[in-house]
């Protein structure tokens, strides 16, 4: 899978700004750069992340399910209120 389109990245920025309730000292251009960098990294390392998942789950889970688990782990580790 290729990196997200510019439109998709902009949608992430819009959604994140509406979701965020905490004080943010980062301006929009720097937020865009953050989203781009993370998307680039995810794209470059997707195969390695997938290879980390042990079998048989790696074969049984769909891409969507794997990403959902990954997202939940990040939220549990790093987001407030978790």
């Amino acid at each position, binding site marked *: 899978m290729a990196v997200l389109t510019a439109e998709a990245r902009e949608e992430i920025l*819009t959604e994140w700004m*509406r979701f965020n309730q*905490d004080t*943010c000292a*980062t*301006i*929009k251009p720097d937020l865009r750069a953050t989203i781009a960098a993370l998307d680039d990294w995810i794209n470059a390392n997707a195969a390695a992340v997938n290879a980390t998942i042990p079998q048989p789950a790696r074969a049984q889970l769909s891409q969507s399910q794997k990403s959902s688990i990954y997202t939940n782990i990040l939220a549990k580790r790093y987001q407030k209120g978790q």
Partner: protein
Amino acid sequence: MATIRVPIFAREAIPAATNGAQHRMVEGTNYPVPSLEFDGSTSETAYFPVLVLGYGSGNLTATIGWYADTASTGNVVFGASIAAITPNTDTQDVETKAFATEVLGTDTHLGTTGQRLHEFDITINQLDSVASGDAVMLRLARKTADASDDMAGNALVTYVILAYSDT
């Protein structure tokens, strides 16, 4: 010669039917804080009705009072424009009246406290032949597509003061 200042509070404003800046009420620690919420990504608009009683001549000044929802740095760009109708004189249909050219203004978050109150002026020099006693609609829009508008999150407008000379 004097300057007439007409305050128009957020609660008096009318959000646009499409992409309107929405009314918001925050239950602050000691009192409620009403505002109009201008999104950080989508350009949103609100309308402020005002009667320019005693208008003499010259440009109008719109002073925008606002604070940042979540940001503590960055710039906001707003556009202001007016539509003026002289009652009993203008034959213009009220419901199809167009606005004069929009004028832009930029303000910078002053930092230190994220939700501190800011004020900045937009000089409206596109006057639509405004005359004393006119029914004026002031249109205010956040210009998020402008590259200079880089403040993240909502800009919350609490009031607008329209000022003009009486001579």
